[in-house]
């Protein structure tokens, strides 16, 4: 430390010299301004000064190079030398000689052997440098994340899909209890894509504000939403729903046809789940491709409490058999030879008939979700598509009832379908049909207003192991928190929280507060 200070002082002095030297030379000038020779001398003097300055600089550099081969010198180090012998055996020699010295002055033992060259590196004990407040700096955290983002972006550019085509996503939906949950999940998936996405959302029962509000949240991403209304209401029987969803998808395809949207069309139901790899994979499609769909068909035991997390899952614990998969089947040369379909025979008569039926919801033979296609397949102008493709209108007319089972109907020769994702080796999307019962209700916009009646005062209930004595009569619980009971809202209990009071006091207090709140509530109502 001291040496550093002295160094700085010398440097400071140097600076003062720098200031003085011109003064000195001006003094020279005034003294010997008379003769021209003196001017020559002055110039020579200055020149020489300059030379010695440069000489000094060079010399120091030379010294620097010789002494410390890399950048800055560390004078701050306190080092202590110690001789210990360590290794497998634990005999630590107790010959410790702690010397606190400047590291540049304490060359390592034996360093002189190598031709008097002194290493900067000191053998012995070093201090562990800990900064006084070792916590992350928020600015640096943000910078680091920016760097990570930049690196990831670069990786996408280098190794991702080159010049991705835009994506046209077709999603049938309707307002229901599970809509927000499903649609949000799908929306998040699409928002991760870093190329143009046109999302055609066809809503049964016409365009609704609830759906529109959900779709608004895609802002700031590359997703462009086309919210299309479909006049008819969604039926509650699964068979009819499947059919109607097909019609809704066809409606979306008409939009593609009319607006001549160019890109890859995929059919994403709002309850489907996708891995982001899928989107890279489907970029490979030329005309029509098929991907494997993992079928998450779920059972439902009526006696099972739906709100309990599955305890003891799989008592039988079959050896982790894979999920059923629906999708293309290939021969050894990766040509499409057939289809893996979900074996629904097992569930004959046990499958769900209507939405909310306590039985297995089965997929159709081939789900639309398993297909992707070039949007030009549905364009009006035939010159944009290969011959083995049927015109959309013709197919629909032939099928009657405005329904086609799957995009396969568009193809004259189904062997032209391109299997994607290693022909079923990779499952990158999953089909799930989880729905609440058709008569289930939910708070509009998922805003609870006014609060549900199922309330208990703060400090009391959340963790019964804290308040195990909780008597049911002190809590004015009226009934379960179902929405069909919303008429009873008026009887809601609002008990104010009491602070910094013992439990005994609280009871009394809360009663008072109860009245207060009631008063406030009524006040609010009159406003």
């Amino acid at each position, binding site marked *: 430390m001291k040496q550093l200070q002295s160094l700085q002082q*010398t*440097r400071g002095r*140097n600076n003062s010299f720098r200031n003085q030297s011109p003064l000195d030379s001006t003094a020279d000038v005034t003294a010997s301004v008379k*003769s021209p020779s*003196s001017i020559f001398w002055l110039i020579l003097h200055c020149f*020489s000064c300059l030379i010695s*300055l440069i*000489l*000094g600089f060079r010399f*120091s550099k030379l*010294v620097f190079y010789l002494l410390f081969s890399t*950048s*800055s010198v560390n004078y*701050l180090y*306190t080092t202590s030398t110690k001789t210990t012998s360590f290794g497998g055996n634990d005999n630590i020699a107790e010959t410790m000689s702690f010397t606190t010295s400047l590291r540049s002055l304490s060359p390592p033992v034996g360093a002189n052997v190598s031709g008097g060259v002194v290493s900067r590196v000191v053998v012995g004990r070093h*201090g*562990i440098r*800990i900064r*006084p407040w070792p916590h992350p700096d928020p600015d640096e955290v*943000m910078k680091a994340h920016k760097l990570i*983002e930049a690196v990831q972006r670069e990786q996408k550019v280098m190794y991702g899909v080159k010049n991705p085509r835009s994506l046209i996503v077709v999603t049938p939906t309707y307002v229901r209890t599970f809509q927000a949950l499903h649609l949000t*999940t799908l929306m*998040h998936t699409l928002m991760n894509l870093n190329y143009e996405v046109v999302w055609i959302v066809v809503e049964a029962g016409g365009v609704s504000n609830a759906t529109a509000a959900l779709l608004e*949240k895609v802002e700031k991403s590359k997703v462009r939403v086309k919210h299309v209304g479909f006049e008819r209401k969604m039926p509650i029987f699964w068979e009819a729903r499947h059919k109607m969803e097909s019609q809704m998808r066809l409606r979306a395809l008409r939009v593609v046809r009319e607006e001549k949207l160019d890109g890859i069309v995929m059919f994403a139901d709002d309850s489907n789940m996708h891995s*982001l790899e899928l989107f890279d994979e489907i970029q490979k499609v030329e005309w029509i491709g098929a991907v494997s769909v993992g079928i*998450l068909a*779920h059972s*439902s*035991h009526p006696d099972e*409490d739906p709100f309990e997390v599955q*305890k*003891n*899952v799989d008592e039988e614990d079959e050896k982790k058999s894979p*999920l059923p998969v629906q999708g293309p089947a290939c021969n050894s040369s990766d040509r499409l030879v057939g289809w893996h379909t979900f074996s629904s025979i097992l569930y004959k008569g046990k499958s*769900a008939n209507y939405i909310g039926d306590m039985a*297995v919801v089965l997929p159709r033979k081939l789900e639309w979700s398993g297909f992707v296609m070039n949007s030009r397949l549905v364009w009006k102008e035939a010159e944009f598509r290969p011959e083995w493709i049927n015109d959309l209108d013709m197919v629909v007319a032939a099928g009657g009832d405005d329904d086609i089972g799957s995009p396969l109907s568009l193809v004259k020769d189904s062997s032209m379908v391109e299997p994607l994702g290693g022909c079923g080796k990779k499952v990158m999307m999953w089909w*799930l049909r989880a*729905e*609440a019962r058709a008569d*289930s*209700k939910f*708070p509009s916009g998922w*805003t*609870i207003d006014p*609060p*549900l009646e*199922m*309330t*208990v005062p*703060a400090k009391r*209930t959340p*963790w019964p192991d*804290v308040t195990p004595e909780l008597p049911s009569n002190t*809590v004015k619980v009226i009934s379960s*928190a*179902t*929405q069909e009971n919303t008429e009873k809202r008026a009887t809601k209990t609002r*008990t104010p*929280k009491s*602070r910094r009071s013992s439990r005994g006091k609280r009871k009394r207090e809360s009663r008072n507060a109860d009245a207060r709140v009631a008063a406030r509530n009524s006040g609010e109502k009159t406003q």
Partner: protein
Amino acid sequence: MGLTERPKKKTQLWKKASVHFLLCFIMGFFTGFAPANKSYFSTQNVLASNVPPEISPPREEISDTRVDHENGNFDRSMLDETLEMKVQERPNVGTIDDKGDMANMTHRRLVIIVTPTSDKDELRGVLLTKMANTLSLVPAPLLWVVVESQSESTEVSDILRKTNVMYRHLVFKENFTDVEVEMDHQRNVALKHIEYHRLSGIVHFASLYNVYDLSFFDEIRTIEVFGTWPMAFLSANRQRVRIEGPVCDSSEVIGWHLKSLNNSADDATRSPVHISTVGFNSSILWDPERWGRLSTDQHTSQNSIKFVKEEVLEEDTKLKGIPQDGCSKIMLWNLHIPKVIKG
């Protein structure tokens, strides 16, 4: 050469000249010693160091044994030096050249998402993928702590790897038969990691079956100490929608939505309020004094979850309802899917 007549003056002049030369030489010599800026950043650091140092609190005591050990041998003189070193080397970040960049850089608090996963869950892979898709949209900084029991399977690692979210994948060796007990253990494993690394952020326990509105992540960043919010529980093929969580007056928690009590008492003690409806500042785990709590010694290692639950209840003054305007907006849903059928 008019000056040659006066030898005395001449020698004086020479002396003067040589002194000048010498001075210049020394000057040059020391200029050469000025720190060479080998790397582009070191100069900035040096230049920015003339800012008065903040008064730095002394090093905190750390409960970790290894560090304790290190503490014992801590050279006091080194501490002094490091303090001084701060003056020398610790740059004030604000003065770094890219000020423009700084201006539009908003500081966000770290969000720590803890997700326990069970290999008994058929949907784990699918739901992890889904969760990753959501979390990757959350503005940084976010740390996703995913826990699973040690196994041969690389399923979780393979899925996590594909996400661009910053995550920690923790494993543990213990075996459990009860899933819920295991989940609690996993949460404790995560909390231990947070505590050991003294990560500072808002902790949220995200079940794989949760679905989020993105605004949720903005909201929980506003939590100071404890926060709570309502959550909707949806179940396939059921009519009922259950809502759990706080009832608020503005952001003040005045009551709780509660699960119906007609269930058996056993069930009620099991998981009365979902752990996903509470969030807290992780520093209560490793720096309880800061929040006026006693030392955590008695709770920590074994059951941090329990500690957190207790704290939430007792610290009602620090408990904040979210979102702030009456915590009436539901920003997360929990989806119950009955057992999945295998092929």
